[in-house]
């Protein structure tokens, strides 16, 4: 079968440095020009195309990249990823409405809060393996949502309204309907995230995660401090989720506990697996498709989610490793965790 991922990797590996720079710049240019393509077949029938690109597409891409560190790189099944997204969004909502801090100042605070939450959850949870970890993280996601729902001091069921937009920078004004500016801002965050993940995954931590994913016992025997690297993956994933939350809140300007249900965690997980676990480009593609598709097929109105579910079933049956699976080299070792 034609493998798009290996074809792409081949071109990349055969190119010299200047050509690689050109390819990268070209890809960035294509991504940056996406909001300009409104009015073509990409237009969504009901929702505004520009706004769909910002949320869900760009936000999904950021979250899927973060979750990919946890699931794709180190093989930890996290079903409560939405918790970190919620913590980031609530940090933005509370600090944005109650203090004079602006979005850019809150972004690092939100990331720190999410990382802290990841640490608190990770220390007891990461002693467990497999499906027990899945249910604990799932429970954590629900605890965060229900707590937000029941505590009236942070808005309760009404959520938080009137979150300020990011302040004007370089004369560019972030107004509510300036979707392009938001998209380009988020694109920069996405590029930074990709850069961070790529740097980390070729270094010691990347190799440690890979060994943990393939065989945790063997990794431990070889002297990899597995617990520490699992926590590190978890906290790093949480930080990306927190960043996505802050950005989401400063775009929608209104958050409520309904935005942070388990369905979000599951959808992001679907993005990662659908696109191709462990491969950044696959994950991005998966997030773009699954973020964009429900709005594109809005003409089906009532049957929209039904078709969406059917697409998941059919695609997983046809391509179990996702649209763009991880590199063959990374799959070379028989992977105990994946073929039980």
């Amino acid at each position, binding site marked *: 079968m034609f493998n798009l991922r290996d074809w792409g990797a081949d071109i990349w590996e055969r190119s010299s440095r200047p050509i690689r720079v050109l390819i990268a710049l070209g890809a960035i240019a294509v991504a940056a020009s996406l909001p300009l393509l409104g009015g073509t077949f990409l237009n969504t029938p009901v929702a505004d195309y520009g706004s769909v690109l910002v949320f869900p597409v760009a936000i999904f891409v950021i979250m899927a990249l973060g979750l990919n560190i946890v*699931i794709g790189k180190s*093989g*930890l*099944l996290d079903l409560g990823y939405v918790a970190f997204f919620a913590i980031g969004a609530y940090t933005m909502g509370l600090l944005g409405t109650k203090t004079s801090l602006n979005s850019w100042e809150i972004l690092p605070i939100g990331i720190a809060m999410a990382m802290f939450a990841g640490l608190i959850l990770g220390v*007891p*949870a990461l*002693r*467990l*393996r*497999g*499906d*027990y*970890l*899945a*249910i*604990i993280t*799932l*429970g*954590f996601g*629900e*605890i965060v949502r*229900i*707590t937000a*729902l*029941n505590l009236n001091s942070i808005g309760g069921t009404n959520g938080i309204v009137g979150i300020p937009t990011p302040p004007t920078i370089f004369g560019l004004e972030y107004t509510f309907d300036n979707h392009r500016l938001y998209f380009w801002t988020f694109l920069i965050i996405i590029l930074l995230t990709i850069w961070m993940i790529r740097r980390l995954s070729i270094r010691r931590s990347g190799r440690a995660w890979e060994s943990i994913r393939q065989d*945790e*016992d063997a990794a431990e025997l070889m002297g990899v401090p597995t617990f520490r690297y699992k926590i590190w993956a978890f906290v790093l994933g949480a930080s990306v989720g927190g960043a996505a939350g802050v950005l989401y809140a400063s775009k929608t300007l209104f958050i409520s506990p309904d935005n942070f249900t*388990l369905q979000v965690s*599951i959808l992001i*997980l*679907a993005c990662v*697996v*659908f696109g191709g*676990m462990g491969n950044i480009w696959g994950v991005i593609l998966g997030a773009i498709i699954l973020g964009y598709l429900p709005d594109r097929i809005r003409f089906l109105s*009532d*049957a929209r*989610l*039904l078709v*969406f*579910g*059917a*697409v*998941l*079933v059919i695609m*997983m*049956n046809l391509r*179990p*490793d996702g649209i763009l699976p991880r590199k063959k080299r990374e799959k070379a070792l028989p*992977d105990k*965790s*994946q*073929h*039980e």
Partner: protein
Amino acid sequence: MLANFQNQFASLTVGGLSLGFIYVLIALGYTMVYGVLRMINFANSEVFMYGTFASIIVIRDVFNFTQQSEPATGFRLAYILFFCLIGSMLMSGLLSVFLELVAYRRLRNKGSNKLAPLISAIGMSIVLAEFMRILTDSRYVGSPRVMEKKVLGSFFGAELRIDNVIIVVSGLILFVGLSQFVDKTRLGKAIRAVSMNEDAAKLMGVNLNFVVSGTFLVGGLMTGAAGFFYILKYENTSFNIGFELGIAAFTAAILGGIGNIKGAFYGGLALGLLETYASFFLGTQWKAVTVFLVLVVVLYFRPNGVFGEAITQTRA
């Protein structure tokens, strides 16, 4: 509040037990499949939801009950309830087998990674829930009242309401029946063999596809029975009830030790009681938080659940 709790303790316990048996039966659906495939069957919550609808269909369309009908009594009531139970179990059991064929079979025979079936089951669960949402127009569907909820008597000050008694007694019967099935029959033996060691079981001539279908069928039957009990207790359902109960039942299965039938039993009962007591003290809005916190604490000290086998070596 404490004095109040003492007064109500017995009644709360009865209510908690009947909720617990609903959890036990759904948890059996999760735990059977997990024992054989080592996979969370995410669509089991939807299997349960279809079971609740099957009961309503039997009551409404087979026995022609309407909201104005007189509740049935005596032998006729027993007859109707029996057919509701059978209807729900069949519906859920067959749906569960169908689910395995569509979402799992191909991937399993290909030997895919472990997350692909999870996502395809999630896809199926979306399809099933959405299909029902469209059919019911996103509304709650109430069940006509088939029986009067009489209080049969009291036991240590607990009101024994008839629906709770039926649920506890028949839940117990179903559970004992299932354990006997798994212990004594040929298929039960094959299921245990596959869950111990799939490769060895295959070498011994176990037909894997048949055993997996059988497991899904039995798990679905139990989950369907839970759907009937739910209708008996709460008398209404909707396309989205599966989610909440499914999560709770899965938690129960984990609490007891997943993959273990006894674990589902004790886990389900413990969760039902815990939830009922927690709602009394903290209000219903905090019950899910209490449940998950207890789960975290239990897993911290007993990482395999209370009755879990050595499953620490199993990974996602």
